[in-house]
């Protein structure tokens, strides 16, 4: 079924039918198998065992259509989600349950630490990237969270982060950009992170009505009134127009004025932890934003109109198109591709589903050079490894730590820019070493909270030798990729029928670990190590070694 015949979806995600024609892989000279693997490398967090065959069975167009519809049931994920108590709560309930540092003592009901909330947030992310059936939506959720980055290092924003991603971003990643932008601008996480919650009309500026309630709260906190430009600036520079978007310092001030009064209900009162518009804090004087005037005497409409204006601005279209091209095609997308995507974005009224669908039929997407052109982010690396090995994630903290060591502490990028999405930002000698170590540790089942069973994974064809293990591992982990090159390089190391035994005899003697008085080793071993596959048998040890090398190989760092 060509994607073109996909009926306009009835869900609220997108109002428009989208794709005009079939994926052009054949014309671009790709085999169907290689094209399927490429689709999986771009629109998922990595192929799971047998997934290339499943895409082929369904048909490439149809598979993509179902990913764009994002309506696959998520039974496994839902079961995992039930183990995370915060997911059952609304945004304001989460804030009451996991209040920010220093406010736990004042809270009415039972509370838990904000750290525990971040643990659940990281767990939910890691489960989703590995297990979600609607992988494209998950890739986009990661993309848009990073685009609208809010950091958990900000104490005030932290309790709102789970709701920010779950309620503001995830439901809208295949909808209209204006809807996403609006949900983000109103979300307490963003209002607090970029300080708009504190921004009020400057002294002497007219406000709508005297707001007794708000004033009393102000007197209590002794917070002086005044404008804060932070959100106004980043809204234009990062969220919409881009840094070369042609706005001026005066525009920044005017936008900041337009959003005065957009704040968060204070704790302990009705509406605590929710978006709130305070007319008494809103500068109701006339404004001019990017040459458009906003009349005097208006309230929340000021901010909404600014969002209307920015959401369909050509500079915004070009900015968003460029970032999508960088994520899905390569670090340096050509101007033609960006211009075409920007036109789709503008022509569809900022329809994100249509824009992503357009990407999938772009000649640049199917350029032979595009395969493996991107360096995986640490999250993408970890997710693709877990997916490829069918690993079971029991507890997220250990894996989160590994990802941080590789340079991407989840939810903790401090700047509103989000993580840079290009190879140079991810590859340096420190992070590369961490990536290799991650491969070895994962294969050896020694990352806490993650279970890898290579024996089960390869049970269908027990590798008779190290080179058979190598062949199986490259096929499994990198379908339709440079497996042959890896095999050629590693084969000299695997010539022996019994790799592990050979290694043992060749290795320099290493003193046994020191023992304590009871004869137990003084050096503690991680839980996974004791039960790890590595020591079961020489054959298993060579499989561990080979899988670790493949996961840490340069080829597996690319997608």
């Amino acid at each position: 079924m060509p994607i073109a015949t996909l009926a306009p979806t009835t869900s609220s995600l997108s109002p428009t039918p989208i794709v005009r024609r079939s994926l052009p892989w054949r014309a671009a000279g790709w085999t169907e198998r290689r094209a399927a693997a490429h689709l999986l490398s771009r629109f998922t967090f990595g192929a799971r065992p047998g997934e290339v065959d499943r895409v082929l069975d369904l048909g490439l167009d149809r598979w993509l259509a179902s990913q764009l519809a994002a309506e696959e049931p998520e039974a496994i994920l839902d079961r995992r989600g039930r183990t995370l108590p915060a997911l059952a709560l609304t945004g304001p309930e989460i804030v009451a349950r996991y209040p920010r540092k220093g406010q736990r003592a004042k809270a009415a009901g039972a509370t838990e630490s904000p750290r525990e909330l971040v643990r659940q947030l990281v767990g939910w992310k890691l489960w989703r990237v590995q297990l979600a059936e609607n992988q494209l939506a998950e890739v986009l959720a990661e993309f848009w969270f990073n685009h609208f980055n809010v950091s958990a290092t900000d104490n005030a924003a932290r309790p709102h982060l789970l709701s920010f991603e779950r309620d503001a971003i995830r439901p809208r990643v295949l909808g209209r950009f204006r809807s996403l932008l609006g949900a983000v601008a109103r979300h307490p996480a963003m209002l607090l992170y970029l300080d708009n919650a504190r921004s009020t009309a400057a002294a002497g500026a007219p406000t709508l009505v005297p707001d007794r309630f708000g004033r009393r709260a102000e007197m209590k906190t002794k917070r002086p009134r005044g404008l804060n430009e932070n959100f106004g600036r980043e809204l234009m520079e990062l969220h919409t127009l881009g840094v070369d978007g042609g706005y001026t310092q005066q525009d920044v001030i005017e936008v900041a004025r337009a959003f005065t009064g957009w704040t968060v209900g204070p704790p302990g009162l009705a509406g605590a932890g929710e978006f709130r518009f305070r007319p008494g804090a809103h500068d109701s004087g006339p404004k001019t934003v990017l040459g458009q005037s906003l009349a005097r005497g208006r309230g929340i409409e000021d901010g909404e109109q600014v969002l209307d204006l920015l959401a369909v601005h050509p500079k915004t279209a070009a900015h968003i198109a460029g970032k999508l091209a960088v994520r899905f095609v390569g670090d340096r997308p050509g101007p033609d591709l960006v211009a075409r995507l920007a036109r789709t974005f503008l022509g569809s009224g900022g329809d994100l589903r249509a824009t992503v669908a357009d990407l999938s039929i772009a000649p640049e997407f199917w350029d032979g050079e595009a395969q493996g052109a991107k360096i995986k982010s640490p999250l993408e690396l970890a997710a693709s490894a877990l997916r490829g090995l069918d690993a079971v994630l029991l507890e997220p903290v250990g894996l989160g730590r590994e990802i941080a060591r590789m340079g991407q502490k989840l939810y903790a990028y401090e700047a509103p820019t989000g993580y840079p999405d290009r190879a140079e930002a991810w590859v340096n000698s420190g992070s590369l070493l961490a990536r290799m170590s991650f491969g070895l540790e994962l294969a050896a089942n020694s990352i806490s909270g993650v279970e890898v069973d290579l024996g089960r994974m390869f049970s269908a064809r027990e590798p008779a030798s190290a080179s058979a293990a190598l062949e199986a591992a490259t096929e499994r982990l990198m379908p339709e990729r440079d497996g042959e090159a890896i095999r050629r390089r590693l084969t000299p190391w695997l010539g022996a029928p019994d790799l592990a035994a050979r290694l043992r005899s060749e290795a320099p003697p290493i003193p046994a670990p020191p023992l304590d008085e009871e004869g137990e080793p003084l050096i503690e071993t991680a839980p996974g190590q004791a039960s790890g596959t590595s020591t079961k048998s020489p054959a298993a040890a060579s499989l561990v070694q080979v899988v670790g090398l493949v996961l840490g190989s340069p080829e597996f760092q690319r997608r």
Partner: protein
Amino acid sequence: MTSPSSPWTRRALLKAGGVALLSFGAGPSFLARAAAASSPGNRKKTLVAIFQRGAMDGLMAVPPLGENGGERLARLRPQLAMKTNGSGRVQAGDSLDSELAIDLGVGFGLHPAFAPLAPLFRAGQLGIVHAVGSPDPTRSHFDAQDYMEAGTPGRKGTTSGWLDRALAAGPSAHGAPSPFRAVALTPALPRSLYGEVPALAIADLADFRLASPGAALDPAGLTHAAGQGFEALYAATSERLLRNTGAETFEAVERLRALGVSRYRPAAGAEYPAGPLGRALRQIAQLIKADVGLEVAFAESDGWDNHVRQGTAQGGFARAARELGAAIAAFWIDLEERRSDVVLTTMTEFGRTVAENGSGGTDHGHGSCLFVLGERIAGGAVHGRFPGVAAEALWEGRDLAVTTDFRSVFAELAAGHLGVARPAELFPGWSGERLKLFRA
């Protein structure tokens, strides 16, 4: 020592400077370089750069006093103004907890959280450059940091960083390169070190090794073999970035293993503050003393984006300043024997509004100040022309004007300390004057 027919023995034990280096499968060229890197003749001049991310308020760090505009500044920032001890001399009471700014005796004060730096200023080793910054008007952290690190205000297309270019132009560009010529104690490679001279980036040198899962139970060197395997894979990959970075990685691992980072003991009296900045400067000091060929070191200091609750003697600014001041002071004590080899400089992307904002903080501004430390630095002085904070002197009516282009400072450091012959060429499109910072 290596035999092509038997890759299993491609391991070499190298005695160099009394230290055994265990290499995983590196070829002879690496062995030669590692030996050179550990020879005593590899003593280098080192420039240490600390980037204060988030834009430090230069007017709070080094506030103007008296005729320089002290009173006017206090009026514009009623919640942020501080009194000074007003003596201009060394004070017993110059302490971190003081409510008073330290009077440097040259028309400027020093925030009390920087108290450990005051003696260095008075000893003539620490200089201050005020009203320094970029000619580009951006108030975006991202852009301003990008411009400063690239060394090209207003130009995004510059692919390399200025520190990397300084290394490429320096006199050590020839000869045996050390894998430690440029080291950033940061989780990601900073923009300043992008470029052709390889740079090592890692938050903590102690973590710089390949994991050895299961080693306690199976101490048979599996990880060692994995290192050989990885080295072969990375040497052969077609992707240039991965291939080059891979080669740097394997060299650096060997050197650090020989050095023993966790065993380092700083000199008596050098008490580094806990946290990433203290650790970074401590490890930089170790690398300098070990003569591994370090020429540029880079670290980061956070916490300067004080939009809210900037505070005075306490608060957001004081927290960040206390860490930075203590770390630099400890570093200087630790390096007492090697001070002639080292210059340290701070930098920050821009300053902050002269007036406080509505949240007890300051918003993004323009000019700020920086610190330069070294035995040959003309210390004890505030360099540059301070434009004042009178209404007519402010940039765009609100910020401290920039009277010294940051490139005037960077070029001076590259020439005066790293020996770059034509420092202006490090900054394409710039033909300004260097700011004189070294004593004759």
